[in-house]
């Protein structure tokens, strides 16, 4: 009955506007804690976009890693280390010009790229209604193990002859995580308080 508001579009625009507005606020703020606060809001709005796209897992990841990570950054990176002169930060006009130049160039590359993908064009609502929402975390995890459940195009009888699965990203993932762990341990070792012999 009556006219229909297309709610996903409405919430998409709301979240996108919030994300952009708070991103600008990060730039314009001078107090470093306020900057972090705006950054958290901007990242949360981005998480909202992910939830809107049905990517619950990525959205929760965004909340946990980026929003939670900003929190840790704020505490340990900013509040404990920043001295008087870094708490209030002023941006010089030279910085503005430089930032606009680089940011504008990136934007000029990104916008044509985004519009050049034909599948990202306007899809009819009727097309989207017929599809089924699936688990988002399961294909991600299976893809990490090498089984691309989203790309099963061959008929089932061919799968028996296709041999072992593709290696996937699990080994690479493990190598990089062990590498990060070693870096963390090294950083903690270097930064530990050194006791003087007395």
């Amino acid at each position, binding site marked *: *009955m*009556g*006219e*229909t*508001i297309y*709610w*996903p579009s409405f*919430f*998409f625009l709301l979240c996108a506007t919030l994300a952009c507005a708070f991103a600008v606020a990060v730039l314009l703020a001078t*107090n470093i*804690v*306020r900057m972090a*606060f705006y950054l*958290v809001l901007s990242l949360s709005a981005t998480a909202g976009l992910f*939830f*809107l*796209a*049905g*990517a*619950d*897992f990525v*959205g*929760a*990841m965004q*909340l*946990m890693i980026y*929003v*939670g990570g900003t*929190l*840790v950054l*704020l*505490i340990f990176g900013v*509040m404990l280390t920043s001295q008087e002169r870094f708490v209030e930060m002023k941006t010089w006009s030279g910085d503005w010009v430089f930032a606009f130049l680089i940011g504008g160039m990136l934007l000029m590359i990104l916008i044509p790229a985004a519009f050049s993908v034909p*599948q*990202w064009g306007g*899809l009819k*609502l009727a*097309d*989207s*209604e*017929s*599809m*089924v*929402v*699936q*688990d*988002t*975390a*399961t294909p991600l995890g299976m893809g990490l193990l090498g089984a691309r459940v*989203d*790309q099963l*195009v061959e008929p089932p009888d061919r799968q028996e002859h296709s041999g072992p699965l593709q290696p996937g990203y699990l080994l690479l993932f493990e190598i990089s995580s062990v590498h990060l762990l070693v870096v963390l341990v090294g950083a903690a070792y270097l930064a530990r308080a050194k006791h003087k012999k007395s």
Partner: protein
Amino acid sequence: MAIFLSNYMWSWLAYTIAALVHVVLILNLVAISALVFIWLERKISGRIQDRLGPTRVGGKFGWLQTLADGLKLLTKEDLRPEGADGMLFRLAPYVSFAASMASYIAIPFAGGAYLLGAAPWAAQHINVGVFFVLAVLGLEVFGTILAGYSSASKWSLFGAMREAAQVVSYEVPLGMCVIPAVLIAGSMDLSLLGDRQAGLFTNWLIFHDPFTFIAFWVYFTCATASVNRAPFDLAEAESELVAGFHTEYSGLRWSFFFMAEYGSMLSVSLLASILFLGAWHGPLPIADWLGLTAEHGRIAMNAGKLLGLVNLLLKAVVGVSVMIWVRWTLPRLRIDQVITTCLKYCTPLAAVMLLGATVWQYQFPGRNFFGLTNVPQAVFSLSEGPPQAAKSGNPVTKGAPVAKVEKSKMGEGA
């Protein structure tokens, strides 16, 4: 519900009302439970300390005491320290409260997930619910840190720093204790996790094997610490820090911090009940014996769900009561002891429990109750994912059409 309503009115109104119903229900659950828990806390602490607690307001047992307190708080002057960062100081309580309330969006209050077309009673059914709740619960500390920083008071800043260090540390074992339950159920979907434990209490995941039994207690300890309750309430240690991060707050803003605290206490207890204590299934399957299942029609099914809701809330209230009991029994730890408890005891314990539960599941697949009983057959059909029936009962989520677009794109790309 939105679709049902849109037959009778404009669809924008229908969607708004459907959303508002969820919001109002959750808001009232948090607010009223805080009302009850504050009274309960005063009563229990009184009894533990051989006092009576509140007795006068509202006739018997002083059950309206919290309402009187609330009225008193409303009339207090809204103070702000001179050196404070005004905007952040005003916003901090709301950040805390919003984060605490947001976790309720994903918590299902009664299940029957996907069974015969029944949708779980959740504001928004998220298929990685456990992960979402954990992620959001970790954000509550942000309000505390903002409050501590913006108050321009050293006591507040000390409290906030302690809280930050504590919550960041305790998130690790907390997450690790949740994983065994997720592994056994094979899903991060809270409603599936709950229905995995249907039937007798022997199917509860706390009794699945010795490792999950210990993991539950580690979870409860870490949950107590992560919601900043005694004996881990270092952020507001009144003997050394005046009142910690909310030293400078008064009136309604101060009470928002308390609503947030009681809200998160309830939500971690709800999560514990869903993960380990059989969720909305009682110790005995009384709803099944009475015939309150989906086979006997809609009314019977919803009556069964109502029973499940009562079950879940009862378990959660018991969990909160245990937290209150612990608070008034144990002395407060020192900050180094708090961190030691986390890093030297809880984290290794949680890791061993995770390993043990994995090996147990590998050795005795399909066994429940310390390997003594078999997993009921009905459970195996649960992990198949949402069948067609789930779509008809579930109110269409706002994000769903866009999600479908994503899928169709992937299909075209492949």
